[in-house]
């Protein structure tokens, strides 16, 4: 019985984004969609526990949820505008998960990542409505109390409805501008999974997996956009190293990872995607980051890494995005090519004293230069600036090894 329930819940989560998106398109209202989806889940738990999961669970959920939504609208017709309800009751689009349904999810991603919503609300809404994560799970991922996260999501949904934020893929000329917001949300979700900010699980495979799943959908829907392909390439090339990244509760840096533990299928996929980007020849931020990760995953050992290629790619990225964080990553690559003295000089002039990765980079370079006292202080600052248990464990070990 419990196994059956778990199976139903798994199917429900897999189908959730599709279900909500199709209901939002049909009924034009997130609240109605969520409520109807919730009722369909209860119905599924009851029915499927006896008869098993049907062959097309998505279709079953869509029909059941639509019927519940129609019931609700019928009940409310007495006080609402009858005309509007009549419009909702009549639906001639197919219920089956076909091409049109994929478009529903694309529409909903653009709504969730609308620039009129606060950035933290965009991430939360995307995870809630398209990823099917519960409010409690999202609250946990972003280290805020559940009530705070619930308020944030409710407020965003209220704004979508009151301000009439459309469920629509933007017009072609606006897509590049709007797409940036969507890609940023997916990258944020992934990063939160890859290096969780709290002191819970150091790596959250559910979040990295969800970001990749949404990026794959986005790429199927917008195959002509090289930055979408670039983001997917970037995510799979980082994800490929996930299993080798934590050992005995400690973070393992790239040069110490057991490369046999990398996922070859994801690396092959990522390299293919990077080649597709190169052929399109319209470089962008995510494509360049993907290319950098392609270089890393291309070398058999860490010492084989083509650092001049990595630095050249960071130079290209700096021209697009001259931010101190890009400069920090470039400086780390320069240190591999021209030595730690040159790298440290670049790192030291960056205004990143509150960023844990800056302290990590300094600590490592100072250690390599034999400046132990300064290195220890830098490790202490890095440890203080992160809550991630695996990263703290790694940094503490490195600090302990210093004489």
């Amino acid at each position, binding site marked *: 019985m419990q196994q059956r329930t778990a199976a139903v819940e798994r199917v429900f989560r897999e189908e959730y984004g599709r279900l909500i998106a199709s209901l939002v398109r049909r009924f034009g209202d997130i609240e109605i969609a969520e409520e109807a989806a919730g009722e369909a889940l209860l119905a599924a738990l009851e029915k499927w526990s006896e008869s098993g999961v049907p062959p097309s669970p998505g279709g079953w959920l869509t029909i059941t949820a639509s019927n519940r939504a129609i019931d609700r609208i019928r009940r409310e017709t007495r006080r609402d505008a009858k005309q509007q309800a009549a419009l909702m009751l009549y639906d001639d689009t197919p219920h089956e998960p076909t091409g049109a349904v994929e478009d529903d999810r694309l529409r909903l991603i653009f709504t969730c990542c*609308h620039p*009129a919503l606060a950035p933290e609300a965009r991430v939360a809404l995307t995870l809630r409505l398209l990823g099917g994560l519960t409010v409690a799970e999202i609250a946990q991922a972003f280290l805020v109390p559940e009530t705070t996260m619930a308020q944030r999501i409710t407020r965003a949904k209220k704004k979508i409805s*009151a*301000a*009439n*934020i*459309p469920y*629509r893929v*933007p017009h072609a000329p606006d897509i590049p501008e709007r797409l940036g917001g969507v890609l940023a949300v997916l990258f944020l979700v992934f990063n939160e999974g890859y290096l969780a900010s709290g002191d819970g699980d150091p790596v959250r495979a559910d979040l990295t997996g969800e970001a990749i799943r949404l990026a794959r959908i986005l790429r199927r829907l917008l195959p002509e956009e090289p930055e979408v392909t670039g983001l997917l390439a970037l995510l799979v090339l980082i994800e490929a190293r996930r299993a080798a990244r934590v050992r005995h509760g400690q973070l393992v840096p790239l040069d110490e990872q057991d490369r046999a533990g990398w996922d070859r299928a994801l690396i092959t996929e990522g390299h293919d995607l990077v080649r597709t980007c190169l052929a399109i020849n319209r470089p962008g931020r995510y494509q360049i980051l993907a290319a950098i990760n392609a270089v890393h995953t291309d070398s058999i050992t860490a010492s084989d890494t083509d650092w001049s290629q990595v630095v050249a790619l960071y130079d290209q990225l700096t021209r697009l995005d001259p931010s101190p964080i890009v400069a920090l990553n470039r400086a780390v690559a320069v240190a591999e090519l021209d030595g730690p003295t040159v790298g440290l000089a670049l790192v030291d002039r960056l205004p990143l004293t509150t960023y844990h990765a800056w302290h990590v980079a300094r600590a490592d370079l100072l250690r390599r230069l034999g400046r132990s006292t300064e290195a220890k202080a830098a490790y202490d600052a890095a440890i203080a600036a992160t809550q991630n248990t695996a990263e703290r464990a790694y940094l503490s070990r490195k600090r302990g090894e210093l004489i």
Partner: protein
Amino acid sequence: MTHYLLTVHGPAERNEFGNYGSKEEMEEAFAATGAFNEQLRADGYWVFAGGLQPAATATVVDGQGDSPVMTDGPYLETKELIGGFWVIDAPDLDVALKLAADGSRACRGKVEVRPFDGLA
């Protein structure tokens, strides 16, 4: 269609050229705003619009008590206040935001977009 209030926010203190740096700048902004208003009418988004006198001309009235209490000056004592507004009728927020951007460029001020909860 949704009705939106587009409010222009600018410094509470105005000089002889309103919020603008010079007479030329002020005249250019007025001309651009006039053209924007014409476009709103032509495209069918126009409901109502107007510019406001300086905030110092405002009076706050509290009529909740036995007799109304009057206070000279604006309700909020801030450095930036509403200088003018448009009421538009647009199909969705994307259209309203685009119009707000055009209006902001024309009048050279920041514009807040806020949906109406119905019109009386």
